[in-house]
């Protein structure tokens, strides 16, 4: 996962919320809460970096948190909110 090149699915809308954001996939109608503002920053920045890890680094996410982020993006991939590009 950390080495994957990812992007937000084009049918996904991100709506900011106080604690993070709501992601809605218009195609499959899945609704996911991104529960931390850092998660939102990273999700929005995916397309600008060659890998997830590079995105985490660019977004100043501490390495101790990377496994949580990787797990979260795996989950987003399984619901098609993000996909490999």
């Amino acid at each position, binding site marked *: 996962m950390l080495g994957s090149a990812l992007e937000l699915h084009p049918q996904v809308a991100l709506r900011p919320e106080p604690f993070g954001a709501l992601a809605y996939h218009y195609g499959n109608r899945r*609704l996911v*809460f991104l*529960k931390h503002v850092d998660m939102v920053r990273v999700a929005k920045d995916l397309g600008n970096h060659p890998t997830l890890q590079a995105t985490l680094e660019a977004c100043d996410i501490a390495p*101790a948190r*990377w496994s949580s982020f990787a797990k*979260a993006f795996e*989950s987003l991939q399984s619901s098609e909110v993000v996909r490999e590009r």
Partner: protein
Amino acid sequence: MDETTSTIATDGSELVAEPELVETELLVEEISIDGMCGVY
């Protein structure tokens, strides 16, 4: 991501640093768009 580093102590024994604590955060949660009370 293990970052155990070793240095040599003054008596020659090896010091092993604690691995950085890995935080577990639940960063995403899916809910069903049809799973909210108060809609048709």
